[in-house]
């Protein structure tokens, strides 16, 4: 059993997206039950018989149905998460009268798509038996059925396929061009920032702490070494700069720690673990560069800090998971 609820994101915006995805997916019931297990530890009969009281105002509820959950405040989101029965009502309202936002919502899961396609085969087959007694009508419909049976996806007309291919090419070109621009910006900003970095920074925390980078760091096992790395990375959360310049400096310092880690020899680790760590460090370094570029493009300090918070959390989770596997 996957514990869906433990994947809940930290930031409000991401939580909104996460919950919207569940409302349009086939696993809402699992999520509701898991949330109930955490918040409402009463017996199942009591829970079933209890009535979810909606404390979110009608106006806000209707706004969410029309425009999505991002209109809800963190307190209103909390109301949904702690009274998960409300999610059934919300899902029903979204399905039956959700606004344009929900109709064009991009959250689609592979499971729903797959089920929809699979079920069409049997539904299409059953239509041929619905025209009681009219064998001629049934044969007109039924002649299409083998076509679907042979091809397990819902048929599309050639026009549709062509339109989608053109769209895909356009999207691919735009994505490619955007990626190239972002990479260029990232490289330029990273180079500038590193130059500034060399001019001298107070950097006595995390992975760039002087004593930390010594190869003879005391760590009894590879697992303990990785745990120590995760603990050091958690130092990120000790400073919470609100000023963009200070945040840029802090990201730079963390980024510098990544460089040191990439170039370190890690004698405490076996070759596969060393390669894993260095590979991961490269990924994280790139993400930190992107966060810096985002800050320099004028994005809000709070948003970028949250982005880096997420990067660091994922990073430490990955290291600790590896450490647990080695233990």
């Amino acid at each position, binding site marked *: *059993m996957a*514990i869906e609820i433990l994947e*809940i994101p930290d930031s409000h915006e991401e939580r909104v997206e996460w919950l919207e995805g569940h409302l*349009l997916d*086939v696993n809402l*019931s*699992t999520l509701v039950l898991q949330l109930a297990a955490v918040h409402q530890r009463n017996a199942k009969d009591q829970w079933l018989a209890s009535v979810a009281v909606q404390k979110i105002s009608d106006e806000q509820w209707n706004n969410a149905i029309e425009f999505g959950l991002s209109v809800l405040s963190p307190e209103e989101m909390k109301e949904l998460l702690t009274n998960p029965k409300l999610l059934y009502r919300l899902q029903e309202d979204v399905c039956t009268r959700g606004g344009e936002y929900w109709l064009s919502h991009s959250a689609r899961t592979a499971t729903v798509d797959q089920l929809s396609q699979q079920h069409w085969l049997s539904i299409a087959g059953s*239509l041929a038996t619905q025209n009681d007694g009219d064998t001629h*009508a049934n044969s007109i419909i039924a002649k299409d059925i083998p076509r679907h049976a042979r091809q397990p996806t819902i048929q599309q007309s050639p026009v549709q396929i062509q339109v989608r291919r053109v769209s895909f090419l356009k999207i691919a070109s735009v994505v490619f061009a955007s990626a190239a621009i972002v990479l260029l910006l990232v490289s330029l900003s990273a180079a500038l920032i590193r130059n500034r970095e060399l001019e001298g920074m107070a950097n006595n925390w995390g992975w760039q702490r002087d004593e930390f980078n010594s190869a003879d760091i005391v760590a009894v096992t590879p697992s303990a070494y990785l745990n120590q790395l995760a603990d050091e990375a958690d130092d990120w959360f000790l400073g919470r700069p609100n000023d963009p310049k200070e945040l840029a400096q802090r990201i730079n310092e963390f980024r510098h720690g990544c460089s040191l880690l990439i170039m370190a020899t890690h004698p405490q680790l076996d070759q596969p673990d060393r390669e894993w760590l260095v590979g991961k460090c490269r990924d994280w370094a790139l993400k930190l560069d992107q966060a810096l570029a985002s800050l320099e493009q004028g994005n809000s300090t709070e948003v970028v800090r949250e982005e880096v918070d997420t990067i660091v959390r994922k990073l430490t989770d990955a290291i600790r998971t590896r450490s647990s596997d080695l233990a």
Partner: protein
Amino acid sequence: MKQTNISDDLDCGEAESRLLTEIANRNESDEALAIGYQAFEKIYQQYSRRLLAFLASRVRTNELEDVHQIVWQRIWIALPEKFDGKNFRAWLFRVAKNVLIDQYRSRKLEFAVDFASVDLEIAAESGRLEEDFESQELLSNCLARLEESMYQIVRSRLEGEDYVEICERLELPISRAHKLFFHAKEQLNRCVAGGM
């Protein structure tokens, strides 16, 4: 029936109306029947995912396909006579709800709840809930085995609090809270995977 070109853009209400008309007029000729069938397929593509999400949280997993099929069969049969032509989506989900009610009535759920005393919404949930309750109980037991500090972090995160708020309230360093959540997650996953 006069043959019309079916638009691929279902976001447009007019295009959807045309498709629904084609389904409704399918008995006028052989050609109309073929067109009506194609129109039905497009309407299915437009709404089946949302309908599946709705049904999946209200019926048992092994009944989902049957119930989904019954809903679309009823739509195919009833549309020419019973659809008023105004709001197809609302009508589709009304039909779906009626199918669910019929299922519950006919199945006489073996469940420790007096269904006469609870509202339809809860009854509608219960087929699926019954299935999930076992795993919920397992998760509850695993949660009960967490250290109090870990449980507090898990609970707070699932109330939608972020780490900064949690740490201010619990007077914990963020790094500590983060570590506690990580270990709680690991412990819960292990506990649930091992069946305790």
